[in-house]
């Protein structure tokens, strides 16, 4: 690609038309079910504190001769915080289609700026949340009703071990047997081994005939999902796959503000230990949860990947007008 040629879109017009048609269908789907479409700021004072999400920031300056002096505002990695503040303030069923930004994510399935469809419905259990997700994906990609398999069942079936009870050494041994590597600094990290096994052995098997929803994640990978205190406590978190590609991530949401503080403290400490940028404590989500976040289930769907599957694209660039290299 010559420099003079990169003004052109990466996606064909046909694919941009598919994008537009799918956006319309998303809106129709939620409208029919009485969801309210909302818009929340892309820029905010705080940001999701996640060990593995790297946010971008910008500076809100007053003096144009000193554009680096001013308040730091974060570009959202998802609209999660703002949506939950709306729910705590009386929202019942909300959705939005928005841009999210994540640094250090660029590849066949990742562009640092991407489109998310995110929705929440008060009163939904994880099961109801999975049903709604399955219906939406069927409307968009005609996949029928999604098959459901728990994280533990999937590991039993495709890896041959119990992901919740296996020791670090057992995970390591299984990975090594399959020639799966992990950088040395992560060798003591149980979740990192689980993720590598999931990526290499489980994910490619999911959604090979229609859609598959994986649910009940290890409690250590709960993010902001509620933990169900079973024999082995699991996170009420779920992800939907088609052709081995992860399309959506949902939670039966954590509503306890003290637990939120604990988890954020943990994630922040991991970030510091790994030498990553530490992130500001969030005040407004905490206040919202102290005020009372109603029990609900929320899902984020990677819209660009939906478009990829709809038109058989193999790289996210093929469905974006201007991917990051041409932005």
């Amino acid at each position, binding site marked *: 690609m010559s420099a003079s040629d990169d003004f052109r879109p990466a996606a064909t017009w046909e694919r941009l038309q598919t994008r537009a048609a799918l956006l319309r269908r998303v809106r129709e789907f939620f409208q029919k079910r009485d969801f309210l479409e909302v818009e929340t700021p892309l820029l905010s004072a705080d940001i999701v504190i*996640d060990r593995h999400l790297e946010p971008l920031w910008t500076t809100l300056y007053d003096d144009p001769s000193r554009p680096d002096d001013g308040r730091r505002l974060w570009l959202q990695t998802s609209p999660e915080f703002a949506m939950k503040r709306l729910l705590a303030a009386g929202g019942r069923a909300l959705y939005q289609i928005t841009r999210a930004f994540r640094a*250090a994510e660029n*590849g066949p399935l990742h562009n640092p700026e991407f489109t998310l469809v995110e929705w929440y419905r008060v009163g939904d259990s994880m099961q109801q949340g999975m049903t709604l997700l399955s219906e939406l994906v069927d409307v968009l990609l005609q996949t029928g009703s999604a098959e459901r398999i728990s994280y533990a069942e999937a590991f039993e079936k495709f890896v041959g071990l119990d992901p919740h009870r296996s020791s670090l050494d057992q995970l390591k041994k299984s990975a090594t047997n399959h020639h*799966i590597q992990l950088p040395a600094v992560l060798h003591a990290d149980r979740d990192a081994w689980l993720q*590598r096994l999931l990526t290499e052995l489980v994910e490619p098997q999911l959604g090979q005939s229609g859609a598959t929803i994986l649910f009940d994640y290890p409690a250590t990978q709960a*993010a902001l999902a509620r933990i169900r205190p079973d024999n082995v406590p699991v996170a009420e978190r779920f992800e939907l796959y088609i052709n081995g590609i992860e399309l959506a*991530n949902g939670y039966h949401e954590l509503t306890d503000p003290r637990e939120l503080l604990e988890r954020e403290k943990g994630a922040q400490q991991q970030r510091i230990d790994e030498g990553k940028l530490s992130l500001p404590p969030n005040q407004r989500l905490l206040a919202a949860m102290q005020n009372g976040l109603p029990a609900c289930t929320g899902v984020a769907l990677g819209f660009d990947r939906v478009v990829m599957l709809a038109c058989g694209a193999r790289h996210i660039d093929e469905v974006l007008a201007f991917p990051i290299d041409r932005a």
Partner: protein
Amino acid sequence: MASYNTSDFRKGLKVQIDGEPYLMVEMNFVKPGKGNAFYKCRLKNLIRGNVLDRTYKGGDSLEAADVEEINTQYLYRQGETFVFMDNGTYEQYELSAEQVDDGWKYLKEGMPCQIMLFNEIPVTITPPNQVELKVEYCEPAAKGNTATNVTKPVKVETGAEFQCPAFIDIGNVVKIDTRSGEYVERVKS
């Protein structure tokens, strides 16, 4: 020494691992939802040709390999030493049989040849993709047999043997693909 960060990782990158140069022949970014980002790389050793699979995490880096390809002319062989001359500087390079590897099979005096330098020291040669070599010895040609799937060993002027079709005769010139070591065609004289 220059280095490449994971955000620079892409196919075609030349990097250095344990003191040896590698070519990145495949690179795949994988990141499960809410998980670690990994860069899965397949790396080919530029000296020995063996392939290495390595998984890196975001923020890791690899040293850049100081690799350069120069255009030379093959001059002559002296025992186990092969002598080349840089077309630009006329500087001469002496390579061992080990460095030349299979390349000796194709080397004719005066032939153009690329040499890869790593830290300014020659490590491998790349002969032209196809070379023409004169047949010095083979079993008599099978008259009337024009099939190319019936082959026999044929010794050429460099001393190397190649599998060629049965109709090839002593004195013929054959074209050989240096990347596969396979016969391409008989060159009309």
